[in-house]
C-alpha cells in the first residue's frame, strides 16, 4: 500500500502557542481508498485533516514543521501556492455551510473562480455533480432557489457536490455526518464508498461504526500522535496497541 501514496506526511509537527497539537506525524495515505482518522476529542485529528489543505494558515501563533507531500509536491514548501493545493481537495465540514447564493451558484462557484465562464460548461458541471451526489432529481426544478432552503441533509450533499465541482483528487471529511439524521448520514456514507473509485478520501470521525462501514484503513490518533495505522478490520478487531484496544472498546474517549 505504500507503493503509491497519494499523500505522504513526513515528520509533521504542529504547535499553537506553546501547545503541541501534532507530534512528529509520519504516514502515507494510499491512493483511492477511504482512510478514517479516529481518536478521542481534542486528540488532534481535525488538525491533522486540516493540515492537508492548510486551512489553519491564519490561526494565530501557529507553527508547522515537517513535510506534507501531495502527488510528491510539498504543500508546506515556501513556494507552494495555497489555492492550487486547496483546489485539489474537496472539504466537507461538520455542518453544511452552503454559500449565501443559489443552489446553482454554489456548485458553479468553484469552477467560476478557476476560470470557467461559459454557461453551457457550467450547466454541465452543475448537472453532473448534482447527479453524482443524488441531488439532481430533488432540486433540478429550483436551481435558482437559495441553497439555505434545502434540508440540512441536502445541504451537506450540495456542499459535497460543490467540492467535487473543482475536480479535486482528494476529499476531506471532518465529521461530515455529525449534524445529520440517520437517513442523510447513510446517504453520505454510501457516497463516500462510491466516490473512492475516483478519489482518495480522508475522513475524521468519532463514530467507530461509521469508520468500519466506510473505510479501508484507520488511523488512530491519541494526544497528537499516531498510535496505530492499518486496515480497518485489523485496527478495530485486533489492535496491536493497548491504547487502541482501550479506545475501540470504549474505555477512553
Amino acid at each position: 500500500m505504500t507503493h503509491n501514496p497519494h499523500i505522504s506526511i513526513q515528520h509533521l509537527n504542529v504547535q499553537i502557542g506553546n501547545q503541541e497539537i501534532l507530534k512528529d506525524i509520519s504516514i502515507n495515505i494510499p491512493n483511492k481508498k477511504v482512510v478514517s482518522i479516529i481518536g478521542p476529542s481534542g486528540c488532534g485529528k481535525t488538525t491533522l485533516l486540516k493540515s492537508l489543505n492548510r486551512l489553519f494558515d491564519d490561526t494565530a501563533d501557529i507553527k508547522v514543521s515537517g513535510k506534507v507531500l501531495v502527488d510528491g509536491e510539498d504543500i508546506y514548501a515556501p513556494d507552494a501556492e495555497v489555492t492550487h493545493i486547496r483546489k485539489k481537495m474537496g472539504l466537507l465540514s461538520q455542518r453544511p455551510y452552503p454559500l449565501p447564493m443559489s443552489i446553482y451558484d454554489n456548485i458553479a462557484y468553484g469552477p467560476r473562480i478557476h476560470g470557467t465562464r461559459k454557461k453551457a460548461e457550467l450547466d454541465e458541471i452543475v448537472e453532473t455533480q448534482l447527479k453524482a451526489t443524488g441531488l439532481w432529481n430533488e432540486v433540478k426544478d429550483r436551481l435558482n432557489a437559495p441553497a439555505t432552503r434545502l434540508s440540512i441533509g441536502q445541504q451537506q450533499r450540495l456542499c459535497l457536490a460543490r467540492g467535487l465541482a473543482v475536480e479535486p483528487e482528494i476529499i476531506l471529511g471532518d465529521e461530515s455526518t455529525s449534524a445529520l439524521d440517520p437517513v442523510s448520514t447513510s446517504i453520505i456514507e454510501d457516497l463516500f464508498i462510491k466516490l473512492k473509485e475516483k478519489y482518495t478520501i480522508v475522513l475524521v470521525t468519532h463514530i467507530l461504526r461509521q469508520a468500519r462501514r466506510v473505510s479501508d484503513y484507520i488511523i488512530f490518533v491519541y494526544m497528537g500522535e499516531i498510535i496505530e495505522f492499518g486496515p480497518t478490520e485489523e485496527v478495530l478487531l485486533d489492535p496491536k496497541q493497548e491504547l487502541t484496544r482501550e479506545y475501540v472498546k470504549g474505555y477512553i474517549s
Partner: protein
Amino acid sequence: MTSLRLLKDKVYAKIMLIFTILSVAVVLVIGIGLYLKSVPVLNKISLYTLLTSSVWKPLKGLFGFFPFIMGTLWVTAIAIIIALPLCLLTSFFITEYAPNQLRKILVPFVNLLSGIPPVIFGVWGVLFIVPLIQDHIAPHFVEFSTGYSVLAGGIVLAVMIFPLIVSIVCEVLNTIPKDLKDASLALGATKWETIRKVSLRKAKPGIIAATVLAVSRAFGETIAVLMVCGNNADVPHSVFDPGYPLPALIANNYGEILSIPMYDSALMFAAFLLFIIILLFNVISRIILARLERKLAL
C-alpha cells in the same frame, strides 16, 4: 411563595413595558411638538412653496427651504460616498487580514475616533480641509472656491461617521462563521474572492444597517458641518459650492433674531423637516432590509 415569585415576574414585565413605551413616546412627543410649533408658518405659506422655493428672505416673510434640503442631502451623500468604501476596506482589513497584535491597536484607535468631540473635527476641517480644497483640489476643477463647501462638510462628516460604520461592520463580519469562509477557501478561492463573493454578501444586511445609522447621524450632525460648509442659502451645484444644511440653519439662527415674525416657526419647521427626512429614510431602509433578508433567507 410561588405566587409571589410569579407576581414579581409580572410586575417587572409591566414596569419594563411602561419604560419602553415612555422612551418610544419621546420620539412621538418631539415629532408632534415640532409640528405644532411649525403650524403658524404652514398656515401662512403652502407646504409646496416651503419645500420648493429657493428664496430665503426672513425679513420679507419669505421662507424657501429648498437650498437647505439640498445642502443637507449634498453633504450627507458626499460623506457616505467617501466613507463607505473606506469603511468596508478598513473593516475587512481589521477582521480578515490584520495580524492579532495590529488588530489590538487598530480597534481602540477607531473607537477613539468616535470619542473626539465634533467641534474638534470642525476645527480640523477649517484649518486643514478647507485650505486643502481651496488651494489644491478646487483649482483643478473650478475657477474659484473659498474651500468652504459641501465637499469640506462631506469630508469632515465622512471622518466622523467612519468609526461608527467600521465598528458595526466589524461586528457583523465577526459573526460570519469561519467554516463558511473556509468552505470558500477550501475550493481554492483567495481571501479577496472569499470576501467579495461570500462575506460581503452575507454581511450585506448588516452593512446596510450600519449605513442607515451613519446616514441618520450625518443628517443631523451640526457643529462640525456648520464650521466648514460656508452656510450660504443657495442650492449647491457642485461639490465646491457652499451649502447650508438644515441643522446648521437651526443652530446658527435659533434664539437670535426671533423678533422677526414667523422666523421662530420657520426654524421649527426646519427641525420638523429634518425629523421627517430621517424618519422617512429609516422607514425606507427598514423596508429594503426586510426584503433583502427575505430574499437571502438568512
